[in-house]
């Protein structure tokens, strides 16, 4: 770890932290994830080529409009994320944003975020809303800008390179005191959407809030997610992604791999630490190692989908 007195530039300090092991690569084999330190993976170039063609990148919780102490420059850290993505030698085909694009659902925040996203080299961007994007009573601001793919429902599906992607919304039907909700209408739609698809089709499901219960007292879960899981279990390769909790948590259940993403804006405490999921204040040199992106590659075998986390330092 860098000695504070010897750190002359923030960038060098951050590089040092990054190589200290903040990033983790997750290799999936036989339905089980093997986490590999990103620095180790980067040094092992032969190993890196086994990852295959980069298919998509996930970013999350950009919270444009946030300006508190935990990160007074969320535009800057999103810009760094975009620069990191644009600098990848092979551009992934898709970018998935798992919600909380903005902090307060304000039109100016959405406009700024959209303007920043135009700098991305990735051709295709897919989004789902977070609860911070939908605080206006009519959810007009999000849907006016990102509603087209779903006909203003928020949930939709698409196919790319033989992978079926399902975008879901679990932030619009909160029951007070409860977890996120998909709701009967959306669940019927998923059932119809998945019906008749071959069990060998790799499936990627993404939503803002976790689709598995990580910590109920903070609402880190989706109350009716089990009805979704029943539809997914017959598939040989299912990857379930979400944002919301601003840190990486993962689990494997049979052929289903659950993975949460870091935020590009600010970290949050681990489940149950403190009064609630408030922005976590850390030192400037620690911050960037707690922010990041997730990229997913499809290796030769469709069941070997590999997740790789990168911090933006």
């Amino acid at each position: 770890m860098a000695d504070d007195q010897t750190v002359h530039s923030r960038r060098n300090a951050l590089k040092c932290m990054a190589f200290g092991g903040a990033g983790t690569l997750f290799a999936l084999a036989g339905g089980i994830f093997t986490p590999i330190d990103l620095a180790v993976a980067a040094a092992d170039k032969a190993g890196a080529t086994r990852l295959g063609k980069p298919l998509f990148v996930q970013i999350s919780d950009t919270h444009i409009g946030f300006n508190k102490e935990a990160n007074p420059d969320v535009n800057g850290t999103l810009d760094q994320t975009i620069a990191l993505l644009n600098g990848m030698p092979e551009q992934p085909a898709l970018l998935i944003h798992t919600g909380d694009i903005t902090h307060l659902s304000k039109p100016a925040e959405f406009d700024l975020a959209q303007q920043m996203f135009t700098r991305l080299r990735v051709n295709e961007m897919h989004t789902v809303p977070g609860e911070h994007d939908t605080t206006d009573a009519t959810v007009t601001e999000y849907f006016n800008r990102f509603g087209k793919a779903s006909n203003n429902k928020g949930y939709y599906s698409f196919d790319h390179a033989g992978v079926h992607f399902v975008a879901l919304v679990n932030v619009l039907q909160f029951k007070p005191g409860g977890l996120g909700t998909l709701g009967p209408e959306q669940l019927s739609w998923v059932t119809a959407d998945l019906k008749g698809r071959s069990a060998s089709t790799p499936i990627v499901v993404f939503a803002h809030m976790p689709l598995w219960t990580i910590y109920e007292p903070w609402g880190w879960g989706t109350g009716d997610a089990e009805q979704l899981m029943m539809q997914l279990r017959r598939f040989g390769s299912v990857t379930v992604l979400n944002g919301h909790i601003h840190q990486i948590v993962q689990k494997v259940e049979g052929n289903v791999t659950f993975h949460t993403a870091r935020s590009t804006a600010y970290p949050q405490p681990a489940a149950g630490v403190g009064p609630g999921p408030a922005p976590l204040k850390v030192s400037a040199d620690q911050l960037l190692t707690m922010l990041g992106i997730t990229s997913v590659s499809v290796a030769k075998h469709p069941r070997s989908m590999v997740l790789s986390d990168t911090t933006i330092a």
Partner: protein
Amino acid sequence: MILARYRSILVAVGVGLMYAVHAGALPAATTDPTKIVVKDFMFTPMSLTVKAGSTVTWANMDEEPHTVVSNTGLFHSGALDTNDSFSFKFDKPGTYQFSCSIHPRMVGTIIVQ
């Protein structure tokens, strides 16, 4: 400016607690009988009783934004950032439940007499 406003709330809370001790009543979060403080992911007080025609004000003192949303759709604050507040006038007697749409475990009740 922000600090000054924050301090005034803290003073108000302190005075409220002292008053509550002297009166032997339940500890109140504020001296203002129509004010609800949103802090540490909680509405304080969680239940507030007011007379018909009163205007209730919710003030967000957290670093995290919150909303105040009626369970029946009667009122909806939109996102309240730190130090933002929202007011609603209750004309008719009844029990009004509300929650934060960003953190749905945050719930509260207004009883209008």
